[in-house]
């Protein structure tokens, strides 16, 4: 499988995007979007002892997610089976749909992949990726002079 770098500025298509790029404005704000987003956005934060990852994928339940460590990669995917709860109707505008996606991230050697934990809250999947003991940033300490 090929790994391509995810470019957050280049993953959008559609005519409005061309206008936005050309005029440097958000036409989408006025008229709505002419395409549907299926890839959730991700924030990554680094702390002294861990990385935290936030994946904005509203409309799922925690059972829909699959988080796997594949060699050096963290693979986050979701697949929601279309259930009967789905309302019968017709979409007049469809700007987002996060029912099925997959994103992968390279894990540096310094993280402890066995201890990754997560929770799903208000449409965001939070993952906690702890660093290995030796990689944690230590607070400065003084050395005694004999």
């Amino acid at each position, binding site marked *: 499988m090929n790994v391509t770098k995810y470019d*957050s*500025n280049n993953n959008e298509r559609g005519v409005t995007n061309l206008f*936005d*790029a050309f005029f*440097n*404005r*958000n036409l*989408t*704000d*006025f008229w*709505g*979007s002419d395409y549907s*987003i299926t890839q959730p*956005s*991700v*924030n*990554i*934060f*680094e*702390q002294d002892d861990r990385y935290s990852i*936030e994946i*904005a*994928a*509203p*409309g*799922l*339940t925690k059972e829909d997610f699959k988080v796997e460590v594949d060699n050096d990669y963290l693979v986050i995917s979701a697949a929601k089976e279309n259930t009967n709860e789905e*309302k*019968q*109707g*017709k*979409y*007049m*505008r*469809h*700007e*987002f*749909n996060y029912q099925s996606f997959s994103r992968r991230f390279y894990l540096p050697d310094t993280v402890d992949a066995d201890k990754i934990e997560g929770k*799903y809250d*208000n*449409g*965001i999947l939070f993952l906690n990726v702890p660093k290995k003991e030796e990689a944690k940033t230590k607070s400065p300490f003084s050395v005694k002079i004999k």
Partner: protein
Amino acid sequence: MMYTIARPVKNRPITSQMINRRRQAAIRTNVLKLENAYELQLSVPGFSKNEIEIEVKENQLFISGKPSDVQENTAIRKEFVKGEFQKSFQLPNEVDVENITAECNAGILHINMPLLPENKIRKVNIQ
């Protein structure tokens, strides 16, 4: 402009790249036509129901959100912002504005707008 999404990060020049990023944080909306109602679905990840306000003025629907927590600023990758937003919609005549209901579930705000029965739509006769 109807709504603003996120303020630019302080002390950084605004580049076209950042404007693109800001747009990514826009509140995306699905509009679903049901048998006798419209349903709006707004993607509001991270928002709980107490952080969102919905108002109906005549036949306009105003939705606003204000995060109650401050986001950490140590991001090494940032593709979305949970920021203040305002969004408004013009409601069609056939919507029964008195009976609009909403619920916020798993980061999606569902707004249900029932339709008036055919004979109750306000019509004006031309004399």
